[in-house]
């Protein structure tokens, strides 16, 4: 559908990922310098020039598998390591949060404001590092250049493309359940109260006109909700009040983030396997991924002691249990790219995979020394 969806998808998911990781690092009192290094490394990688160039090209959305692979790589762009179960959980939270934001946007154009909220927060994370800051600023300009001229219909097409991408994902997030914005069946609640979107008027009026254009009758009706007039529009510039809270950081030390895996399998009958393609990655996606990897700076942890593992669960046992009990239909099927060597693999990709394997092998031993494992879940 829309060929301009990928940058928004990537930036917003990346933003959510950073919120979650930042909260974890702070909640566990990780030394400030280490935490900052993790955040900076990930943000630098996210906003790598070549990477973004590729991202902003007109293209269809990646498959779910390909996108998950990109975020796997991104999450490992620093000295931090995540096990499969924690990465799964992180990705669940990221995607459900953005799905919620896309859905609840009053107007399709507000997705851009949500993106700016994420960008504003990212900018704040790196405000002390001028080199990364300039990369972020450049991205603002690209977003503004690409998206502000679009019409309402084109934004709605982007939104529809995103909703189809997120279709049938109903993982329950405890923060959403608590706030009653998500039902126990995993569906989000669409409110019938609150301010109407900018540009819309409160429903309830029928006006009828004569042939000369004079209003002849006014009829009012009960709009069945509790709507109020629209509030001011958010800013679409590099700086400004975005007005909407969607896309701002909803996590804090006191707001735990859990995903409920049990119970979601009851809804599995509804999960349609739309992309049951025989090849895990189409050839085009492999090439794309290769270009992206080419742009990603490979992290070589120089000092084995500085690496550490982040756990999104309270204990290692819980993490292991989560991995075993994860329902099949919710498996992201992260590509082991080496397994697809029998396909026509792009040479660059193969080279890069070699580099990754090298650094990847060091992590299990690195984590057992030096820093403690981070126990993740907030104790609430």
């Amino acid at each position, binding site marked *: 559908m829309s060929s301009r969806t990928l940058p928004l998808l990537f930036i917003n998911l990346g933003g959510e990922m950073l919120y979650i990781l930042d909260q974890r690092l702070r909640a566990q009192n990780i030394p400030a310098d280490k935490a900052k290094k993790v955040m900076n490394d990930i943000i630098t990688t996210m906003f790598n020039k070549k990477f973004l160039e590729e991202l902003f090209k007109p293209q269809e959305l990646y498959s779910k598998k390909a996108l998950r692979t990109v975020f796997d790589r991104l999450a490992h762009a620093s000295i931090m390591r995540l096990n499969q179960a924690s990465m799964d959980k992180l990705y669940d939270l990221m995607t459900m949060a953005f799905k919620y934001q896309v859905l609840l946007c009053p107007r399709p154009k507000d997705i851009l404001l949500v993106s700016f909220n994420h960008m504003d927060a990212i900018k704040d994370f790196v405000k002390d590092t001028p080199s990364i800051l300039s990369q972020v600023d450049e991205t603002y300009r690209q977003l503004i250049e690409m998206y502000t001229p679009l019409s309402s219909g084109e934004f709605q097409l982007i939104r529809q493309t995103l909703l189809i991408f997120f279709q049938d994902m109903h993982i329950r997030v405890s923060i959403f359940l608590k706030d009653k914005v998500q039902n126990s069946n995993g569906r989000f609640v669409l409110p019938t109260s609150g301010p109407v979107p900018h540009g819309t008027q409160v429903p309830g009026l*029928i006006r009828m006109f004569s042939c000369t254009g004079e209003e002849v009758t006014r009829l009012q009706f009960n709009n069945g909700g509790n709507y109020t007039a629209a509030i001011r529009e958010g800013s679409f510039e590099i700086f400004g009040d975005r007005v909407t809270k969607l896309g701002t950081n909803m996590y804090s030390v006191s707001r735990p983030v859990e995903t409920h895996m049990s119970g979601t399998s009851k809804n599995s009958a509804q999960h349609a396997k739309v992309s049951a393609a025989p090849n895990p990655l*189409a050839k085009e996606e492999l090439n794309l991924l290769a270009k992206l990897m080419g742009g990603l700076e490979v992290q070589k942890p120089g000092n084995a002691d500085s690496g550490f593992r982040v756990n999104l669960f309270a204990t290692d046992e819980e993490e292991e249990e989560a991995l075993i009990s994860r329902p099949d239909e919710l498996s992201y099927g992260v590509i082991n790219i080496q397994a697809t060597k029998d396909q026509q693999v792009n040479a660059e990709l193969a080279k890069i995979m070699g580099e990754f394997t090298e650094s990847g092998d060091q992590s299990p031993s690195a984590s057992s020394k030096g820093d403690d494992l981070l126990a993740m879940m907030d104790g609430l």
Partner: protein
Amino acid sequence: MYHKEKSIQIKNSASALYNNLGVLRIAPRRLTYFTVVHANVVNMVSASWDGLNYSHRQLQSKEPNVATSTSLIMQAAFCALPSRDLLVVTSQKGIQIYESDGSIMVYWHALDTPETPTAQAVFARGISAVRENYICVGISSGAILVFDVPSKGSNITLSEVLEEHKESITDMAAECSGSQECIADLVSADDGGNLCVWKSGEEFQLLNNIPGFDMSCSSVKLWKGTVVAGYGTGQIRLYEAVTGILHAEVKAHARWIYSLDIAPFSGLLLSAAEDSLVRVWHLSMTPETNSVEVTALKTQYKTFLTVDSFPQVLLT
């Protein structure tokens, strides 16, 4: 007035697309066909009127000569012509026309898709049967393809390309009142809210171009010479098709309207929007004053709208 009938469960969820529910009543067989698009699949249900038999089928968007990536379906709609009923499915790659039960594909039209994707998306959207033998389909460029359909067989031909709209077509509708007196046969709407009114024929004639107000018109109907248009702002507007005179403006919904439907004999209008509500209106024409009245009917159904399902309401 509408009353709720037995619900029908579709095989999977409905995608977030305009006008995503196709309905075809087949009186001689006491059956109704329904279609709902889910990503690259059309879910079809054939439901018997006595509510006892349901049969499901799925159509995949498998375009011929397209080996790899499947494209997403934008819309599936039934076209009821006097001689035959057909099912038209539009996607990012082209237009497929099937027999109404989805059993056989009778025609395939490929869109000009560029080798590398361009910033402007390419797709077909907006489907309508017109008069005796035409099926019209809109394109993302704003063009409208007019297909000439024989009473039998697959010899469907592209008869004309109408180039009036500058923005992507969103929806199209033919005059549905059954009246032979109406001059206007077809109305087309686009992402800028512009409405074009046409008279069909060997060469379609543009009768009027009603400018929009920079807001997408996502759903449109044509009834007794009146255009009924639903917009992204949640407004519904009624225009006299041939003159463009605004009859009425309704602040109908708090969110984007996704679908409109008219029951032609009773003048009942249904509107469904992202605010999760379906509203029922009554339209009445006063020929003497050439005006149309709109009243909101008291009953409004809160649908079972969940995030992944747009209107799934049965009409009687």
